[in-house]
């Protein structure tokens, strides 16, 4: 553990170095770390990095491997999760921004990559899981009928032995489509939407991305607040949803872009709000239009509701849309 009375600037560098080590494949040396630190705006040389690495080693957060490489320890990974609380509040938006920037789906051609949620399940549960995901392959339970199955030897995703990975399109893909078309978009919050007779009635609970260190979707799933199966069977229940805002002047352009997205099977918009007016009881910033969308993760959360053991990773990574298969 890094004590909280360490100089905040040193603390930030230590954390960034650990992050760089975690993100690389295998052990990584001081020279490469120094280069990556510069890319991220930290003015630090190879010697400086060595000094910081010594601190990390002493505290058991990194470990020397081979000549000069370092790898992260279990304690180090825990530290990345727990440390520097002040920088982690609202960090989900930073992660979202990074993914949005790396996404390049073209709504005219349907080529490019999309943001996906991933889930890991046991091989034995595969048929049962697929039954649920296939039944819930469209709005409001999924963003898109396209999914991807990852086997143990998948080159892009680490799938543990005896398990299968599944990727479904994440609703943040909507944000990246808007940004790719020049529309500034601010993801605001994740929430639970109450459905009555198959229609959205009102937002029931909200958690703002800017005020939490825990992903809102995880909060609702782990607290078992969803009732996706009930909604599927009776039309009444609570589904996961999220909200983003765009400028009022971009309204028509956004409609046009989202219509095109619908043609390539990406659709999850609930409705567009009036300017600066609450939509489904959820607040909207003055001068903005709110776009509430159903979360793409509902079908996976339904699997969890059914009692099957599933590890869900919302807003997980990006993958080529063309490599996904239609259910």
């Amino acid at each position, binding site marked *: 553990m890094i004590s*909280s009375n360490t100089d905040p600037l040193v603390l930030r560098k230590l954390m960034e170095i650990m992050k760089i080590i975690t993100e690389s494949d295998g052990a990584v040396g001081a020279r490469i770390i120094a280069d990556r630190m510069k890319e991220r705006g930290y003015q630090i040389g190879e010697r400086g990095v060595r000094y910081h690495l010594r601190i990390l080693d002493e505290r058991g957060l990194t470990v020397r491997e081979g000549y000069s490489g370092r790898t992260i320890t279990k304690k180090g990974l825990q530290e990345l999760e727990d440390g520097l609380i002040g920088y982690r509040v609202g960090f989900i938006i930073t992660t979202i921004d990074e993914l949005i920037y790396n996404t390049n789906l073209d709504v005219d051609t349907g080529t490019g990559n999309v943001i996906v949620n991933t889930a890991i399940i046991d091989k034995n549960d595969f048929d049962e899981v697929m039954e649920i995901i296939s039944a819930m392959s469209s709005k409001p339970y999924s963003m898109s009928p396209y999914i991807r199955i990852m086997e143990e030897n998948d080159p892009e995703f680490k799938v543990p032995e005896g398990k299968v990975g599944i990727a479904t399109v994440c609703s943040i893909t909507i944000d990246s489509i808007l940004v790719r078309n020049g529309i500034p978009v601010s993801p605001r919050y994740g929430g639970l939407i109450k459905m009555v007779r198959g229609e959205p009635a009102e937002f029931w609970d909200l958690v*703002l991305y*800017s005020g939490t260190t825990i992903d809102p979707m995880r909060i609702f799933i782990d*607290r078992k607040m969803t009732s996706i199966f009930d909604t599927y069977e009776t039309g009444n229940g609570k589904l996961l949803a999220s909200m983003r805002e765009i400028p009022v002047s971009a309204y028509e352009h956004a409609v046009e872009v989202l219509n095109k997205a619908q043609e390539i099977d990406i659709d999850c918009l609930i409705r567009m709000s009036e300017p600066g007016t609450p939509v489904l009881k959820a607040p909207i910033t003055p001068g903005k239009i709110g776009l509430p969308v159903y979360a793409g993760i509902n079908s996976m959360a339904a699997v969890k509701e059914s009692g099957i053991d599933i590890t869900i990773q919302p807003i997980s990574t990006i993958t080529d849309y063309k490599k996904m298969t239609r259910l």
Partner: protein
Amino acid sequence: MRARITRNNSNDQIIFIISRIEDLIYNVTFDMSTGSGNIITNISIIKSEQIDDILHIFRDVMLSGLALSTFVKILSPGESVGSLTIPEGKHGIATVCSITVDGVLLKKGIPVKPKFGGLVEIKKGMPVRFTDLIRYDSTTIDPLEILMSHSLTSVSDMLTSGSGKILVNLREITMNARNKVEEILDDMASAGLGGILEVGELNTDILGMTVERDHFGVAVIGGNNMMAVAQEQGFDIDTHAMSSIMNVRDMVPIDQVI
């Protein structure tokens, strides 16, 4: 008495937890000199047959200092508090909620800003830092209830080994009130309301979290750490944090009900 802001009478917009907190603390009338008046309670609904086990857990947690006070009120099946009715086969245990501290400070003229609920890592009995938090103005669900259901707490470990993660909430207060706040907190402790984990320095991070300019932070132990322990030990417990206002005269020290 019931909290006035509920979902039913808010027709146009969803209510964030900060509004509910402010509504509740406005209703606190606890008087430290007489030891009477209204405080805010959390209610835990439990299976009737488990009440003895759970009361013993609660007592252990209270005596170890991980609670605000030892006062409780047992609610029988069918009994109602505010909008909450205890179902058949269940009992309710009302305990003191940590935002009572904000209510008492407010009524002493201190402008207090409840900020967030979070998890604090404790090492060998010393609070080290916040590791997760959710701001009150960013959520419609009580942050401590979220963190409790997230299986991130290790309050039992904290009790047995002195190290673990406990539920804590934080408020900020303007710096010129610092001396008066310390006095009030001392008086509260004498009147049986404790649970202060740390009073921060002016313009200085508290447990790793920054404070607003010219403010200081006060970290208070969450009233639901005892529920977290019961839950960690496998008991079914349905918590309703910040659920109602109750006169402290209607409550008794836990030793009287065990």
